[in-house]
Structure formats: C-alpha cells, structure tokens
C-alpha cells in the first residue's frame, strides 16, 4: 500500500506552510481586539518600591494599565511546578513562588511587572515605556554553582541556600566501591551549556472574554492545549474548564518551549476579562530570549571506573542544575527522572549513582527542550566513554562493544527497564556507513591541506513517551501521561481522527493519516486529522518527549480496534457471515475466502442509516480510546562525526556526520529523516554555536542573533542516515519515537571528534573557533599537522 506504514508520503500540511497560508495565532484577528505590551524588569534582582502608571494611562489609545497586585487580588494563581521531587534526605523540594506578574520583587531580566492594554500594538508599547517602576536593586547571581556558595544572594525566602532539592538515584556505596576497585578511573568536569529554544514562530496569545456567557477563549502557541486549559482552570483560576476553550492553531515549532503556560498567556486572559476586550500579545524576538524557557545549564563532575578488561565497574555523577528564577512546569523532572535514569547508557553497569542539586538563580526559568535531560545524560556518558578509551589506549568503538547490553529486557540500576535494542548492530551499521576503515587516509589527506581531522562516536539511548501514568505518578508527576483519540467514520466512509497530540512541525496530518490508511486500506485523502482545539478534541496530553508516535498514534490504533470490531459485526450481519470471517482489505470489507463483500463506505452508510444493524447495536460509527503505555520506549543509535579543524583559526567544519538509529517501526521514513536532520542540526548547534551568556550581575548578554548563534545551513554537512530496527514491544505499532534523538545523540560525537583532532580533551561547548584555537595553543599542534 503506497500510503500506508513505511511509505515516504509527502507531507499533506506543507502546501499551506510553504505557500504562506498557514494560520498562526498572530494571523488571527478578533473583533474588538486590543493589544497587550508588558513592562519588564531591566534588573536581574530588585525590589519593586513603587509603580507609577499615571503617564501611561493618559496616553493615546490606552485602555488599561494593570499590575501584578491587581492580578493577585483577583485570585489568579501562582505558576505551578508540575513535578514534585523529593530530596535524598526525604524532604520535599523548595520552590519559590512565581507570580504571573511580579508583585514585590523581580528575579530575572525580562520578568513582567505591568501590562498595558491599548488600541494598537504601537500605542501599547509606547505606553509601556512610560510606566515608571521604582526598583531597588539587589545583588544577583546567574551561575548555579555560585548560587550555592555561602553568602550568595538569596532569591526566595523559602528556599535556603537557593537549593530547590538535592536528589539522588542509584546506590552511592555500591558506586564508590566499584570505583575503588577499578583499575582505571576516568574523571571529567562537564558543562552542558545553556540554550535558548528559538522556535521560528514566537509565542503569541489572543484572549477573548465573553461576558454574556462568562466564557473565555484562548488562541495560543501551545504544544498541549488541553493541558493549558487544565492548568489555567485548576491552578490559575481563570475559569472552570467548560467555560474555557483553548485553541492552538498552526504552531511554528516548539521544541518544548511551548509546553508551558507562561505569565503572558495567563495575564492576557485576565486582562481580557478586566477590559472586556480581546487582548492579543505576540512576543518579539528580544522578549523571546528573555522569557521563553531556556534549557540545559548543568555543571557536572563524573567518574567512571573500569576493570582491566575495560568493563565499567562504577559510575558516579554529581550535577548542579540551574533551574532559573522560578521552577517551571517540567523543570524539576528534566534534571532528575529524565536525566539520572539514562545514566546507564547502552551499557551493562551494575553500579550507577547520581546526585543532582537544583538551584534557583537570577536567570530565565529553564525547562525541557528537545531531549530534556537525555542530551545531558548522553553527553556525560559518551564524553566519558571516548575519554576513557583514549586514556586506556583502546579503540573507542571496542570499549563500547565490551560494555553493550545484549539481553532484553534489561533492568538498569537507575529505574529504567530497557525492553528492546541491538546496540552492536547499530554500531556496525554506523561504522560501515561512516567508512571507518577509510578514516586514516582521510585524516592524512586533510593534513596535506593543513587541516586536523578527527573522529568521534556517540552511542545514545533515550526514553520516550514519558509514561506509563502510574509510573510517572509514583515519581512525582502531577499529571497522567496517556493520550486519547477518537475515530469518526462518516456515513460516506471518510474518516476524521481527533487526537490529543498536537503538531507544530512534526507532520501528524500525514503520518497519523498513514496509520489509518494502512489499517483500513483507504486513501489518505479520505482521512483528516483534527487537533489543537479543546472544543473539538475530547482530551489530550499533547506533544513533547517524542510521544506523539509512541503514545498518540497508539491511542488511534486502540480506537481503530473498536471501529474495526463494529465494522466487522455490521458486515457479518449484512453478509450473513461470522464476525471472525470478516477481513478488511483495500477499502473493502470481505468474507474471507468468498466473493462476498461490502465497500467500506457501504458499511459506514449502514451504520448511520441503521436500517439493518445487528440487534441491540447502537447506530453510528465513532469510537474513542485512551492509551496508557506499559513502558517508556527506548530509541537508540550510534552517531559518528568527523570534523576538520583549521589550526590557524580554530574553525571547526563538520565534514561528515553519520547517524544510525533504531526508532522501532517507522511510519514515514522521509519525515523521520527530517526529524533526524533537525535534531542533529540542533545538536551541532549546541556543540559548536549556541550559548546563552549572562554576566555576573545577571544581565543577558546574548539577547539577540547578533550574539546568540543559531546553526545555519552552511554549518552542517549532508547527513548520512542508517537504520537498524528492533520494534518496541510495549506498543501495538512498535514505534519508539524520533523527534529528539538527533539532539540527544549528536553533541558528544561532535566534541569527541574535535578533541580527537586537536589532541586536547579540555574543551567545553560550544566549541567556538576562539575556544578551539585556545585549546590548540594549550597543548601545541598535534604532530601530524606540523
């Protein structure tokens, strides 16, 4: 079947996207629409002594000027942290209170203090500049390690020492014992650099309050409109869920940053009620840099011990995670259960221990971003493995081979039960595709051009789906992480799929339709995917953690199971056969082994005319399902990067990048390739280019693209992609997820390749020309290039 599972079907949604006819939040205009502009803190840390809005209120077009105290007085709730972490001493975590607009104190540059509502965006912004906020500056701290020091500025009265929690996983005594008995110990200090997400579409919201029905509608750039409605209702007291509709129309990229329900969206809803006007706010890029949740920002000390055969005998990891000024929705889960649980990597390690201290600082809140915890874990594991191999004089691939897990299911010492994988096969596929045998010749050819060529590996495993609900609930999650779907077969046989997953670039309109097309043998054109509107779709948990395939699509499968059962009953009744003898093929419903059949649409019509249904059967053909997985899924892969370094300038060129991935069942290989391209490019961005920099006083230095460096097309090579597949045993489709793998697996491969090229392991991300040049100066040029 040309449009079914495994077909490289072109994306249905691209026609509107590439012809500029997508409908994004900012494209929507409401009647009676006014514009919001925020007054934001220019200080990293300050007391608010007073706010004078009189000049702003008198300006042309100004409708209202509203502050955080008014918002609090109206009982709008503080912003919540969605995952409760318990410290190793048994105490619950301490997180500072987060007002949607600051009332008494600001804790990072860009924190909203006042919203101005005006007739035009220009008027709103002009008036915002006229608001006078009297600040008394306080000492600030931006680096997490410094925030833990005695005497560091304290952000929240209820968070002593700025320490949110001190969490651990694994057995420390066992890890210590393993390390004590090791014949070789590799020790690394690792920094995982802070990133800004930079979705191409900035965040936007239009809040529409209808006083007749006391009803709110929010159009917003969300990856999970139902979660937004739930949180806005249950915690922020905007309105009960039946009086609040959240619509996430076309959304231009999220990468995690559009999971969260931010101060601006909450404030716009409240301001719409206060003013009786529809209130639109669209972030500009400068606001995005200082308000969209940042990512990563770990400082880690890691020790890995080996026996004489190169077998890992112990791993101990101590990490300080910068959470920012407030603990955002998944901020506490990311450096714990999405990080420490992956510190066994692809390896059979008996003893793993990890301790994580999460810290408040005067910076933008940090949260989950493409990979969320798994890139940080993979970076630790794969930098250690490569470094250890070099220190022990071993081939880095051979060291990994000796430690690979080969039997499944495999219980790691850090919670996860890996259920499938073939790490040897991935490594072999990757090595073959990367032409490892030819590397020496390529290196010497590069040397003849004055370039240092290096190679680096990364063998990653990650966990997708973020489920089962019961498991995440036991670890502190505030929500269940299932997904729902509804399959509506119309009387003419066409199908609408309602899904709680949300597409913001992933191509669900195509892949989800392929799964349905495959099941019933119908053309994709007869299938429509409906998502992103809480009034249309029953419920959903949204899209993040590479879960739309592993969880969302399997909910559709469950609903299709029910549709199929009913279709078979109707056909069996009509064709006078047994249910068990009915098969559905190529859009026809047949009695197996006979020429008796009905067209698919005839069954649909029969269901709705209800003239001749089995006794007791309800009319109609519409089924829903909720799917809660029994395990995470575990994509894995081997990435091999080759770089050439210009020793004169330190410029790194990624000349070859090979990705061999195991994503389980692949629905659309072209879309999966696109996900790998995007993910690897983001990973190369982290490794070479991207870095959020604060100065010591908490001022954001990288507040624009003049200083924050995004990857461009000419920064990356044409990728070489390979697949080796083991299906995921935990779900009916056998899919594992592919959205984040590229960003998870690639950074260590890049850094391992550079450190190989220059012969100096003392290098941090991003490996800018300046840093690489300095690292070369530190040790001198490798012999071959002189």
């Amino acid at each position, binding site marked *: 079947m040309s449009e079914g599972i495994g077909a490289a079907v072109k994306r249905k949604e691209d026609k509107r996207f590439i012809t500029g006819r997508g409908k994004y939040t900012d494209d929507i205009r409401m009647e009676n629409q006014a514009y919001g502009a925020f007054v934001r803190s220019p200080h990293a840390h300050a007391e608010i002594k007073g706010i004078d809005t009189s000049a702003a209120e008198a300006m042309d077009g100004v409708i209202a000027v509203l502050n955080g105290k008014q918002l609090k007085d109206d009982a709008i709730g503080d912003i919540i942290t969605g995952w409760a972490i318990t410290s190793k001493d048994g105490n619950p975590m301490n997180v500072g209170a987060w007002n949607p607009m600051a009332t008494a104190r600001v804790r990072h540059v860009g924190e909203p203090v006042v919203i101005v509502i005006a007739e035009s965006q220009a008027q709103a912004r002009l008036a915002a500049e006229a608001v006078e906020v009297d600040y008394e500056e306080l000492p600030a701290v931006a680096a997490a390690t410094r925030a833990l020091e005695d005497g560091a500025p304290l952000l929240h009265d209820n968070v002593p020492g700025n320490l949110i929690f001190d969490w651990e996983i694994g057995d420390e005594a066992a890890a210590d014992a393993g390390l004590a008995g090791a014949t070789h110990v590799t020790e690394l200090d690792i920094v995982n650099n802070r990133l800004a997400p930079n979705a191409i579409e900035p965040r936007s919201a239009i809040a529409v309050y209808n006083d007749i029905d006391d009803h709110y509608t929010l159009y917003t750039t969300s990856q999970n409109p139902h979660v937004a409605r739930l949180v806005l209702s249950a915690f922020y007291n905007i309105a009960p869920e039946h009086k609040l509709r959240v619509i996430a129309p076309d959304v231009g990229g999220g990468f995690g940053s559009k999971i969260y329900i931010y101060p601006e969206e909450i404030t716009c809803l409240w301001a719409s009620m206060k003013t009786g006007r529809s209130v639109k706010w669209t972030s500009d890029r400068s606001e995005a840099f200082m308000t969209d949740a940042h990512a990563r920002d770990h400082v880690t000390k890691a020790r890995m011990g080996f026996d004489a055969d190169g077998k890992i005998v112990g791993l101990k990891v101590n990490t300080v995670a910068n959470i920012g000024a407030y603990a955002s929705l998944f901020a506490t889960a990311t450096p714990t259960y999405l990080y420490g649980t992956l510190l066994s990597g692809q390896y059979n390690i008996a003893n793993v221990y990890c301790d994580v201290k999460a810290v408040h600082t005067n910076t933008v809140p940090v949260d989950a971003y493409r990979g969320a915890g798994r890139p940080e874990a993979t970076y630790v594991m794969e930098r250690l493995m490569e470094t250890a191999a070099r220190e022990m004089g071993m081939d880095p691939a051979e060291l990994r081979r000796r430690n690979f897990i080969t039997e499944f299911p495999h219980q790691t010492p850090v919670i996860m039960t890996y259920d499938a994988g073939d790490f040897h096969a991935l490594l072999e596929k990757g090595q073959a595709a990367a032409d490892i045998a030819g590397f020496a010749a390529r290196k010497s050819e590069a040397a003849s051009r004055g370039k240092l060529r290096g190679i680096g590996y990364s063998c990653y495993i990650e966990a997708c789906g973020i489920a089962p609900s019961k498991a995440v609930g036991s670890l502190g999650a505030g929500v269940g992480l299932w997904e729902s779907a509804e399959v509506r077969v119309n009387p003419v046989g066409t199908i609408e799929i309602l899904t709680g997953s949300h597409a913001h670039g992933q191509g669900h309109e195509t892949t989800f339709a392929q799964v349905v097309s495959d099941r019933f043998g119908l053309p994709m054109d007869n299938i429509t995917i409906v998502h992103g509107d809480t009034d249309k779709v029953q419920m959903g948990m949204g899209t993040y953690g590479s879960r739309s395939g592993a969880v969302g699509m399997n909910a559709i499968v469950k609903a299709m199971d029910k549709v199929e059962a009913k279709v078979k009953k109707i056909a069996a009744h009509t064709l006078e056969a047994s249910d068990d003898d009915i098969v559905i093929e190529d859009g026809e419903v047949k009695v197996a082994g006979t020429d008796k059949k009905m067209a698919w649409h005839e069954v649909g019509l029969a269901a709705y005319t209800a003239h001749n249904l089995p006794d007791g059967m309800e009319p109609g053909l519409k089924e829903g399902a909720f799917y809660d997985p029994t395990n995470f899924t575990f994509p894995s892969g081997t990435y091999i990067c080759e770089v050439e370094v210009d020793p004169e*300038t330190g410029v790194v060129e990624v000349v070859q990048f090979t990705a061999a991935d195991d994503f389980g069942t692949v629905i659309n290989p072209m879309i999966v390739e696109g996900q790998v391209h995007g993910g690897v490019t983001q990973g190369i961005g982290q490794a070479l280019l991207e870095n959020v920099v604060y100065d010591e006083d908490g001022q954001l230095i990288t507040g624009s693209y*003049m*200083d924050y460096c995004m990857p461009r097309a000419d920064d990356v090579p044409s990728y070489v992609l390979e697949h080796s597949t083991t299906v995921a045993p935990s779900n009916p489709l056998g899919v594992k997820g592919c959205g984040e793998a590229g960003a998870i697996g690639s950074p260590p491969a890049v850094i391992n390749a550079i450190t190989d090229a220059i012969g100096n392991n003392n290098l941090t991300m991003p490996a800018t020309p300046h840093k690489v040049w300095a690292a070369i100066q530190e040790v001198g040029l490798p012999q071959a290039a002189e």
Partner: protein
Amino acid sequence: MYAVNYHKPASIEDAVAAIGGAEEAKILAGGQTLLPTMKQHLAAPSDVVDVRGISGMTDIAVRGDTVTIGAAATHAAVAASSEVDTVCPALATLAAGIGDPAVRHMGTIGGSIANNDPAADYPAGLLGLGATIVTNQREIAADDFFTGMFTTALEDGEIITAVSVGKPDRAGYAKFRNPASRYAMVGVFVAQTGSGVRVAVTGAGEDGVFRHAGLEAALSSNWSSEAVDGVDVGSDGLMSDIHASADYRAHLIKVMAKRAAAAS
C-alpha cells in the same frame, strides 16, 4: 518603532532642506542598521530622509584609473559591477561578502561608511585603498574620514554622495566572521597603491577601523606570508567580547593579513 516623518527627496538640495527643517533627522541610505535600531526604540529620529531617490546616487562610473561609486549603490550592485571589477576586484569581492543576500540588496556603501560600524567591511576596504569620500560639501580622504567607533568626519546634515577609488597595484580582503552575527570579527584589507602599502583592519579595534603600521612595513618590504609572520601584532586597543578575546583577535589579524595578501 516610534512614529516618524519619511522624506524621499529627488535632489541633494531637497534632502538638505528636509534635514534642515526637521527636529532631528537621520539619513536613510539602506536602513540595515538604522531601521533595526529604530524598531528597538534605540533610535528615535523625528524624520528620516531617504537619499536613494536622489538623481545619480546609485551610479557607478570609471574615469581613467578611478571608479566612482554612488553613495546609494547597494552592496549587490557593487559586487556585480564590471566597473568596480575593472578597477579593484577586491572591493567587489568585499561587497559580495557583506551580510546575506537580503542585506546586500538593501544596504549601501554610503550607509555603511556613514555608520562606521566597527565590524563593517567597507571601512576596511576604503581605508585600505586610500579612497576619497565625496559629500555635498567637500571631498574627504579615508584617512581623515573614519574617526572612531560609529563616528566619522561628517558634519551634521552633510550627505555622502559618492566614493572614489583609485586602481591599486594589488589588493585583497580576508575576513573572519563572527559566528553569530557574521559581521567581521576581524577583517583585513591589504593594498599596494601608488602611495605605498596600506593595511586596514576592521572588526577588531576598540576605536573602529585602523591601519596597522607594522603589517604595512612588513608587506612593503616583502609581499608574503613569511613577512607577516615576523610582525608583532599586539592586543592593545583591540576589542574583547564573548566571541573573541583581544589576544585571539590579534592572532586573527595576522592570519587574515596573510590570507588577504595571498588573495591579492
């Protein structure tokens, strides 16, 4: 952006009048710096006077060994100009490497040098070539024109109309791009001209574009990489930021000087 009055005069006289009649006028030549600055509310002129419609402002013409480039000629026009290529291909190459295609089709040579961004390319090219900047009031030698970071010898209301460049014996430009902005983090223009060897450095100096006497002396005696190797380029007076320390910039000045000399 704040509300602003927009003028598009057809003559220098009208432009001068528009500037004179405004509370605070800014000349708009390509807008590649001015407009983003205004959007961010970092500049708030009462009026902008767009000089791109002034007759002759985009002309490029060769007379003898000299090419004269209208101040409103875009980077793309300079890059594609056979006249510029005839007199100084290195200048066409420089123009072809500014920003990206969108910038090159809007940005102009006059706008670039009037702004004198310390990381812009043209200041290095024009200082390196010993060009002459022509205004509605006078002619200014490049050596006298670029007076410091974002500052020039231009008087209030003075409008650049053209730039004249004489044919060098040889010239070359090499730049090291800032990874984020892709402006020059270090750009070096080298030229052998009738009045001697000139080496101009952009992107690196705390006071903007500057000539480097040591490199000029070395290349005067021996136009080669080896000669550059022997020069001591110190880091005094060089910028240091999150992208590059002064030491790294000093190192890159030598590397780019060698590459520029090799490209000439």
